[in-house]
């Protein structure tokens, strides 16, 4: 069970860390000052969640490790995030829609995890949930504002949806390790999470007058460490300091 929980904690932490890192890239590039601040504040929350879940992974690890080691010293094949969170940040519409998809995913996942049979995981999920609710109210409002405003903004949102939609089913993938955790009521049934996620997001897409793309290619690979080329570049940037100056603190 410890090994399974270790792997699942990495899945949660890697997802939040890669989301947070991409949002942090907006620092100084936001569409206007207040939004610049908002993007980086959400980033900070997500990196905080990553740190909590890396600590959970460390507590369930068979070897001695630290949250910093897990974030800065693992290479691409050891990362467990779904591909959607490592994609380049794109334009503001793309960032906004991706944030909305992940916020809805986190909302339902953390709601269920907050009643996990693992007390530590439940406590962390409760803490993260409070912040995710606020992120969602922001990303949802932005989706509506952009989609229902000018033709150009609507077009950009539709383009973002066409690009992102096929990355979303991977969020709900499971492997044998996660299935054991599901059986033990440590984590919820991911299929049920997918159902509520779909209902909620499809309603918003309809409200935003965005057309859901036809079924096509579906992204997969994060759970087994098979990533896009983008993660390598992200890690090179993010991990540079620890790789160049091992053990460096500031």
């Amino acid at each position: 069970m410890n090994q399974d929980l270790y792997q699942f904690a990495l899945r949660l932490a890697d997802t939040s860390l890669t989301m947070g890192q991409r949002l942090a890239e907006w620092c100084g590039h936001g569409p206007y000052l207040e939004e610049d601040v908002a993007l980086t504040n959400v980033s900070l929350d997500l990196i905080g969640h990553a740190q909590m879940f890396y600590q959970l992974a460390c507590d369930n690890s068979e070897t001695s490790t630290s949250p910093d080691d897990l974030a800065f010293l693992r290479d691409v094949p050891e990362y467990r995030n779904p591909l959607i969170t490592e994609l380049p940040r794109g334009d503001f519409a793309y960032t906004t829609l991706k944030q909305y998809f992940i916020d809805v995913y986190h909302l339902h996942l953390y709601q269920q995890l907050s009643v996990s049979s693992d007390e530590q995981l439940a406590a962390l999920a409760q803490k993260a949930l409070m912040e995710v609710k606020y992120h969602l109210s922001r990303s949802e409002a932005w989706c509506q504002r952009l989609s229902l405003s000018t033709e150009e903004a609507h077009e950009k949102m539709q383009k973002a949806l066409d690009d992102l939609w096929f990355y979303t089913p991977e969020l709900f993938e499971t492997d044998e390790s996660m299935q054991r955790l599901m059986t033990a009521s440590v984590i919820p049934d991911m299929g049920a999470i997918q159902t509520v996620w779909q209902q909620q997001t499809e309603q918003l897409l309809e409200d935003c007058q965005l057309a859901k793309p036809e079924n096509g290619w579906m992204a997969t690979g994060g759970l087994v460490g098979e990533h896009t080329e983008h993660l390598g570049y992200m890690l090179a940037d993010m991990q540079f300091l620890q790789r160049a100056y091992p053990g460096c603190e500031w």
Partner: protein
Amino acid sequence: MSGLTARQVLAWLQAVKDPEIPVISIQDLGVLQAVEITNEQIVVKIIPTYSGCPAMYVIQDEIRQTLAEHGQHEVDIQLLNTPAWNTDMITARGRAAMKLYGIAPPISASDQVIQCPQCGSEKTTCISQFGSTACKALYRCESCLEPFDYFKCHA
């Protein structure tokens, strides 16, 4: 730690303020959860406000520094994940200090009118959901036209 009481330590720690809002103590903010005195050391239990709040590092340094000024060097600071911090943990004294400082204190979600901390007007508009820090939102008063920070309700 003979003779030293948790009450005394709590009184000393009133001097430790939130680095972002230097008028409210970590005790009134709800960050400081407990002080325990063992045979060997002072145990200080704190919780983070927001998960990624960078002020937590500064707060830990300041707790150590404050206790050192009172000759206490054996200090164990524990950063807890539970209970999850929420704005109901902010004391009445903390809210009053915040308002005097020009920040609208948090109100419960059911009561949505946010008063201007400068003139008391209830005609206020949200400019941005995130203000100068993660815990605040940016508002503007439509009566006196002053912008102000609102300490968000977090529960």
